[in-house]
C-alpha cells in the first residue's frame, strides 16, 4: 500500500494522519528546492537547503510516529537538525570567505573555477 493510498483511504476530516505530514513535507521540500535553484544570493540558497533538510526531518518524525515500537526516525531527525546546524555553520563560513574574496555573495559572479 502506498502512502498516497493510505491518505486516500483516510476518512474525511478525521484526525490528522500521515498523509498530511507527507504533503506538508513535500510542499516544504519543493519550496526549498525552488529557493535553492532560483535564488542568486548564497544566503538565500542556504535557506532553501534548510527548508529541504527540515522537510526530510519532518518525514522521519512522521514515519516514526506512525510506525510502532521504534524511535529510529526521531533519532534521525535529531541527527538531521545537528547536521543542519553544522552545515549552516560551515556554509556560512564559506559564504563569509567568498564575500571577503569577491565582495559579493551572488553565486553567479563567483565563477572562477568554471572550466
Amino acid at each position: 500500500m502506498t502512502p498516497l493510498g493510505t491518505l486516500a483511504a483516510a476518512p474525511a476530516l478525521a484526525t490528522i494522519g500521515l498523509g498530511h505530514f507527507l504533503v506538508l513535507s513535500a510542499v516544504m521540500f519543493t519550496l526549498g528546492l525552488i529557493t535553492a535553484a532560483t535564488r542568486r544570493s548564497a544566503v538565500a540558497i542556504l535557506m532553501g537547503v534548510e527548508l529541504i533538510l527540515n522537510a526530510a526531518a519532518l518525514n522521519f518524525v512522521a514515519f516514526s510516529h506512525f510506525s510502532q515500537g521504534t524511535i529510529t526516525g526521531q533519532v534521525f531527525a535529531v541527527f538531521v537538525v545537528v547536521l543542519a546546524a553544522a552545515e549552516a555553520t560551515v556554509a556560512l563560513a564559506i559564504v563569509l570567505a567568498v564575500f571577503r574574496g569577491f565582495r559579493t555573495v551572488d553565486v553567479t559572479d563567483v565563477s572562477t573555477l568554471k572550466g
Partner: protein
Amino acid sequence: MGAIPYSGGWLTPPGIDAPLAWLLLLPLLGALATAVLGSLFARRLGGRVAPALAVVAMLATLVAALVIFFTDVLPVGQRERIFRQPLFPLFVVGGIRVAFGLVMDPLSAVMVLLVTGLGSLIHLYAAFYMEGQGEEQGKDGRPRFFAFLNLFVFSMLLLVLADGFVPLFFGWEAVGACSYFLIGFWYRRAAAADAATKAFIVNRVGDAALLLGISMVLWGMGGVEMVTGAAAGQLGNVLTRNGPMVETGEGLQPSPGRQKIPVGPTLDFHELRDQLRLEMLPRAGATTNPVTGATADAARDVHFRPVAYLLNRKTLGHLPFLFVACVMLLLGAAGKSAQLPLFAWLPDAMAGPTPVSALIHAATLVTAGVYLLARLSFLFALSPGALTLVAVIGTLTALVGATAALVQNDLKRVLAYSTVSQLGYMFVALGAGAAGAGVFHVVTHGFFKACLFLAAGLVVHAVAATTAGADQRPDLAQDMRRMGGLARTLPAARWGYFAACSALAGLPFASGFFSKDLILTALAACDRLAISTPLLLAALGVTSFLTSLYAFRSYYLIFFARPQRDAAHEAHHAGQHGGHEGLGQRVMTAVVLLLAVGAVVVGPALGWPGNWTANQGESSLPRLLRFLAPMFEGDWPRRDVSGTPAIVEWGMQLGGAVVALLGWAVARALYRDAEATAPARRRLAERYAVVQRLFATGWQADRAYHLLAVAPARALAGAATWLDRAVVDRAVNAVAAMGMRLGWVAGVFDRHVVDGVVDGVSEAALAAGRRGARLQNGRINSYVLGIAAGIAALVVLAYFLGS
C-alpha cells in the same frame, strides 16, 4: 730402417723413424725458423740470421737426402728400390682410400738429390747475393725471402716424394704459391707484382687442367674392377699375377711366386702403375683372351694387360677417354713447365731476384711438369695420341723458345727463353717414350742453367753497381747492350758462363751434349708417334743450332763485344769497390765455379753413351738410365726389344756436335767484335724487322693471350656490364619506381583515410568536450536544478521499472 719393397698393401703403419718425412720436415722447420727467428733476432744479431738459418736447414736436408740415398736406395737390389713411407690417412670416399704417403724410388731419388743439391748451392749463393738487396722501405726483407726459399724447396720435395696424386697436388700448389711470393719479392715494383700475378694465373689454368686429369684417371679406373674380377674369375677386385719380372740370363722373365695386385680406382702412382702393367699369363694351352674372349695370337697374348685394355677401350664422346685424360694432365704439366701454350709467364718471372730465377729454372717449379709426365709415363704410354701431342708441343716450344732467346737484349730473358726451349727438349723425350732421357736432361739442365743464372747474377751485380738509376730500373743492369768487355774484370764468371754455355749449346763432351743426344736418338727410334719423326728431328736440329747461337751470343755480348758505353772500366771499378766484401764475392764465385764443373762433368759421369762402350744389352745403357730403368721399362707391351741401331746414335751425336759447333762459330763471328759487325747486323735487323719483332715478343704470346683469353674475358665483362646496366639496373630501377608509386598511393591513403579516422576521433572527442563543458557553467542554481531533475528522473525510472 730398411727399404720396404712395395707389396701392394694399404698403409703400412709408419715406423718410429720416418726418414723420408725428415726430408720434408727439415726445410719446413727451416722456413719457420727463418721467418720467426730471422725477424725476431734481426736487430740483436744482425740481418744475417735468416740467411744462415736457411742455409743450415738446406744443408741438413741435403745431408739427409744423401744419407737416405746411400743407405736405403743404392744398396738395395735394382728392382726393389721402392721405399714407401705412408704417413697418415687423409680421407675415405667410397672405396677410395686416400693417404698421405711418401715414396723414394729411383725417379724421386734423382729429383730429391737434384733439388737438395742445387738448392743448397743456390741458398749459399743467395745468402751473400741478397746482402742489401732485400730492403723495402727500410725493412729487411731477407727473413721473408729465405723463409719462402726454404718453403719452395719443401714444396718441391713434397711434390717429388709424393706417392700419389693427392700429396703431389699439395706440393704442386705449394710450389706455385711460393713462386708467386718469390717472383713478387720486390712487390713494390709494378713489374714484379704483375709478373707474379701473371705466373700465378697462368699456372692456375694448368692446375685446373691437372685437377681435371687426376679426376679423369680416377673416374676412368672406376668400373674396371667388376669386369676384370668377374671375367678373369679372380677373387674380388684383387688379381694375382706371377711375381715381378726379374732379370735372368735370357732377358726379363716372371719370377716365381704369386703377388697380389689390387685393382680398381686409386690415386697412388705405384698401385696405378702396377695394375696398368698387370700382365695376365694365359693358362697352359689356352690362347683365349680372358676379358674379350677373343682367340688371339698366343705370342701376343702373353703380354695381354686387362686393366690397361679396359681403360684404353673407354671413350668420352668421340675421343678416347685416356687421350682426354692425358691431355688434361699434359696441360697441367705445360702450365708448370712453361710449355706452349702456357709459357709466357716464365720470361716475365725474371722480375724476381736472380737466385730465385736460378732455383725456379734449375731445380724446382719448371721441372715439376717434366717430373709429372715422367712419373706417369706408364699412363701416357697407353695413348699414342697423347704422346704425339707431348712430342709436338715439346718441339714447338723448343723452337719458339730458342728463336725468342736469340733476339732478347735482357740477359735474364735470354736465359728464361732458353729454359723454355730446353724444357721443350725434355717434353720431346717424354713424348718419344724416353722418360729416362728426359730426366737426364732435367739433371744436366739443372746444373748448367743454375750456373748460367748465378754467373749472370755476378754480372748483373757488377753492372748494377756502376749504372746510375739501377735501383729503380733493374732492367738497365741486365741489358746486354750495356755490357761487354767484362771478361777481364770477372774472369770466374766468364769461365763459369762459358762452361755452362757449352753445356747448353751441346758442345761435344759437355753435359748437354749427352742428354740432348739421348733425346734425339730416342726420338729417331720412336715408332709410336702419329707424326713424322724426321720432321720433329729437323725442327730440333734447327733448335740446336739456334741454342748454340743464342748461348754464345749472350756470352760474347757480355764478356767481349766492345762496350757501347764505358761499362768495362766502370765494372772494373765496381769489382774493386763493389757492394760485396771479399768473402761474399769469393763464396759466390766458388758456387758458380762448382756449378760450372758440374755442368761439364755431370753429363759424361751419368750418361756416357752406350755406343761408346763395349758393353752389351742393358749394361750398355748410360748410368742414370740404368738406375731409372725400373721406373720406365715395360711401360708398354714389349713388342720389339731391339735397341736403337748404333748407327742412329752415332749419327745423332755427330750431327749434334756439328750443329752446336756451327752455332758457336756463327756467334763468335757475329758478336765477338760487336762493333765491327754492327753495321752488318743492323742491316740484317732492318731487313728482317718483322721476324725480329715476332721473335722478341716470344711469337706474340702475350698478344695471343690477349686475343684469346684477356680480350674475350674483357668482352664478356663488358657484356656483363651492359647486361647489368640495361637489364638488371633497369629492372631494379623499375621496381624502385613502382615502389615509389605504391608509396605515393599508400601516402595518400594514409593522409586521407588513416589520418582522417584518427583526426575524426580526436575531433569528435574535442567536440564532445566542448559541448560537455557548456554544462559546467559555474552557476550553482543550474547544478541544483540538474541534481533535482536527475533525482526526479531516477524516481520516475524506479517507478516504471520497479515492481
